[in-house]
């Protein structure tokens, strides 16, 4: 956008990633304008441009499975609806367990996924070995596979939503950081965007890893904790691996993208918080390469092309924070999505848009509301299947 933001919008969305843009599109379609999205960096500079593109419906909690199942059907329609190929490719997700405890976790996953009517397969080591012979399945004690899971290429989805939002009249202000949330007692009144005072009665916090900071701008505590995760891509090859692989033991996830690169990461514990420059560590390059060669021993000569990192916007119970803040009227959360915001974005943003419009949603406040972290009540639902 050129020029300057207006003095007033009906809705201001903080964060121009997949959640913010998708929410803006849903709101604009419902005729809720004028709407502005404020993004402090460039398009896709946050986790929306840094994730591995996985889209899965295998979870431990039925509530997450339901969101994910809706997201998968939305991703299937996306190319037709929005004019860009996000290359949603349903190559399946293969979870690998390498201990009795992990096998038991996959059994819980199977129960939750099947209870939602999805045909997840429970596989033995032998079945994994015969279906994916390029894998060294020696250490596998069990596996699950759901063929309708898949991967997207994140960037085109961002372009599609950016352009769709603009066509619908949404103003998307990139390189425009929000530095203050203005409130009048118990309700929001606007914000400072790019140093300029903008009135808005409704504000959506869709700032991903920076959500806790944005809540703090409104004087609100939050349960979000950004944690930095690293990822790399190898040189491109002709296709040889269809599913996304997840190994529970070390959180390894890897898939082969439309561009032929193997893209993946694994859990390396970095101290929580934001770290300037989003660096890459030698420790990650070493452990990720080891893990990959462990599963694919013949790939030793394959070269790593690019490494980067990004934030998971984690919450204590692994469930997102969606809906209006109980302490501040007009301040809506669309955050706390851990490392899974991109994949769940179609389902999450639709619900957030509805709640901004004051419509009823199926979001149980005890599961998704920020209130679950504020009172004496503790979160009842725990989503433990976090890798990939």
């Amino acid at each position, binding site marked *: 956008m050129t020029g300057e933001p207006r003095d007033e919008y009906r809705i201001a969305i903080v964060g121009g990633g997949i959640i913010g843009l998708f929410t803006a599109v849903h709101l604009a379609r419902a005729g809720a304008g004028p709407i502005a999205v404020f993004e402090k960096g460039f398009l896709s500079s946050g986790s929306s441009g840094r994730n591995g593109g996985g889209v899965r419906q295998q979870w431990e909690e039925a509530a997450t499975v339901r969101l994910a199942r809706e997201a998968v059907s939305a991703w299937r329609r996306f190319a037709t609806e929005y004019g860009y190929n996000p290359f949603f490719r349903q190559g399946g997700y293969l979870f690998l367990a390498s201990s009795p405890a992990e096998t038991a976790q996959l059994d819980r996953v199977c129960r939750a996924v099947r209870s939602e009517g999805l045909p997840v397969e429970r596989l033995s080591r032998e079945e994994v070995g015969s279906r994916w012979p390029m894998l060294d399945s020696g250490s596998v004690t069990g596996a699950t596979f759901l063929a309708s899971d898949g991967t997207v290429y994140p960037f085109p989805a961002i372009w599609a939503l950016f352009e769709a939002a603009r066509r619908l009249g949404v103003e998307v202000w990139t390189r425009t950081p929000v530095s203050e949330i203005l409130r009048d007692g118990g309700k929001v009144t606007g914000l400072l965007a790019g140093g300029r005072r903008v009135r808005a009665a409704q504000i959506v916090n869709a700032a991903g890893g920076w959500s806790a900071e944005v809540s703090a701008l409104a004087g609100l505590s939050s349960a979000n904790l950004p944690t930095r995760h690293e990822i790399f891509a190898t040189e491109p090859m002709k296709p040889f691996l269809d599913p996304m692989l997840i190994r529970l033991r070390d959180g390894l996830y890897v898939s082969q993208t439309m561009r032929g690169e193997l893209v993946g990461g694994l859990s390396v514990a970095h101290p929580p918080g934001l770290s300037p420059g989003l660096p890459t560590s030698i420790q990650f390059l070493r452990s990720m390469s*080891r893990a*990959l060669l462990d599963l694919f021993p013949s790939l030793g000569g394959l070269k790593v092309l690019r490494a980067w990192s990004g934030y998971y916007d984690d919450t204590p119970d692994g469930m997102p924070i969606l809906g209006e803040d109980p302490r501040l009227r007009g301040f809506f959360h669309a955050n706390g999505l851990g490392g899974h915001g991109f994949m769940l974005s179609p389902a999450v943003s639709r619900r957030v848009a509805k709640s901004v419009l004051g419509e009823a949603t199926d979001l149980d406040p005890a599961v998704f509301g920020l209130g679950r972290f504020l009172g004496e009540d503790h979160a009842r639902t725990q989503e433990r299947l976090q890798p990939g």
Partner: protein
Amino acid sequence: MAERARESFRFRGREYPVRPGEGLLHQLTRAELPILVRSIRYHRPRAPYCGTGICTQCLVRVNGVPNIRSCMIEPHPGDVIETENAWPSSRFDLGGVLDRLFPSGIDTLHGFRRPSWLRPLYYRVIRRLAGFGQPPTPTGPGPTEPASMVEAEVLVIGGGPAGRAAAGRSRGRGVDVLLVDRGPLLAPPSGVRAMPHTFVAFLPPAAPGAPRVFRAVATGPAGQGVLLRARTVIVATGAYDGGLLFPGNDRPGVMTAEGALAVGAGLTTPPFSRALLFGGGERASEILDRLGSSIAAAASPAGFDPETTRRASDLGIPLYPRSLLREARGTRRVREAWLVPRGGGPRTRLEVDSVILAHRRLPHTQLLFQAGATMAWWGSAGAYLPVLDAELATNVPGLFAAGEAAGFPSGIAAEASGIAVGERAVGNPVRLADLPSRPPREGAPELLGYYAELLQSPLARGKWIVCACEDILLDELRDAHERGYVGLEEVKRYTGVGTGLCQGRFCLPDTLLLLSAWEQRPPPEVGYVTQRPPVMPIPLRALAELPEEPL
């Protein structure tokens, strides 16, 4: 047969005798420039281009390992060398029909969406177009040397004039100095430990805390992982000859000055005999000096310096100053090149068999970016360079830059900067009077105006390849710009420019200038992209074997 295999290597089903001490590319390039690989998306024929292990135009599969740059290795007896991304052969490849079927490119972002039931099939086909080669199916042994950790007080990266001078000076003060270079290191300065054929791929900032220690990830001569540790690092990684945007700039026969030297220097009959030399400065005159008998004409985006003019006139080579190189034609080999005078005028058609690009040098600054040095746009150099203090130190304690990587002109200035930095790195005072100077920071790069003019003139049809690694076209960049994507970071992600195997060395400098022209703002406002590790692709095995450090 077994006896034979021990002294020969196999290429395209034929046995070639191994000539010890000679690189693979040289052995494959005798009378003709070989087409070793087909490009990623359009299967365009590609022949050696940069000669320095950066580009993707001489990739081969060696003993089942894909994407090996033939200019960087020596063949061993029994090696099996195969061409990539081509069937039945890289010379006659059926995939090449894609290039003709889609003269203005394939738009996979917006096309191939309908009908939705066909989409999985489309995606399967598009996926097949990615990548040069099949996944590795190694047939040979892995690295014959174990991974290692090497420590030094001062680590000098790069064994050119600047690096050697720096290493020698630091060592002269009794400090333990390690000098690494990607190529051979003949006769290193006395007392300096030398590690030849060692490539530093990643230099993160030193971890906070005392004592300060830099760690660098490298590969050794056998491809093994090497972890380097040093308190002080001098980056003297040099520069490379940059590319140029014009239709046909990826055609076999178009190459950089270094590429031409790699395939042609020292041969009585180089694989080109009627080359168009593009460039009018020191580099061009060097090419005239070394390959003059194979040069048919010389053109320059600006003028010619007196030395180049004199040499060309001695050789009877016609000069075309202030020219736009509008096009190179020829499919499997350049046959002709078209020049237009800048500012307008009649076109000139030249019958040539190659185009040698010697118009600009670009610094290898990736390690400086990675290590956290403050970098600034240097207009006159057309590149980002480290900001140095009056005694040539970067803003990062313990990190120094010398030679062409720091923007000093090659030769005497580069060496003098190495001497100064070598002294400074070990805490000796530097005599300010001895310091060489860099070109001015102000000014606009010559190519900025050149490209603005090129894009205003009626564009030749056909594919304008901005990124040859991923076959990304000028039209795709323009599409991104016209749709409202702003700055290099967004356009990189929209088009994929800068994400190929050369790590953006050939496409990003041009993309920066193109965006600067379209967005009508100077290059530093268009920005740059974060220089992600590794500097060049590094094998998984080398990373996996990196030693754990004792804590």
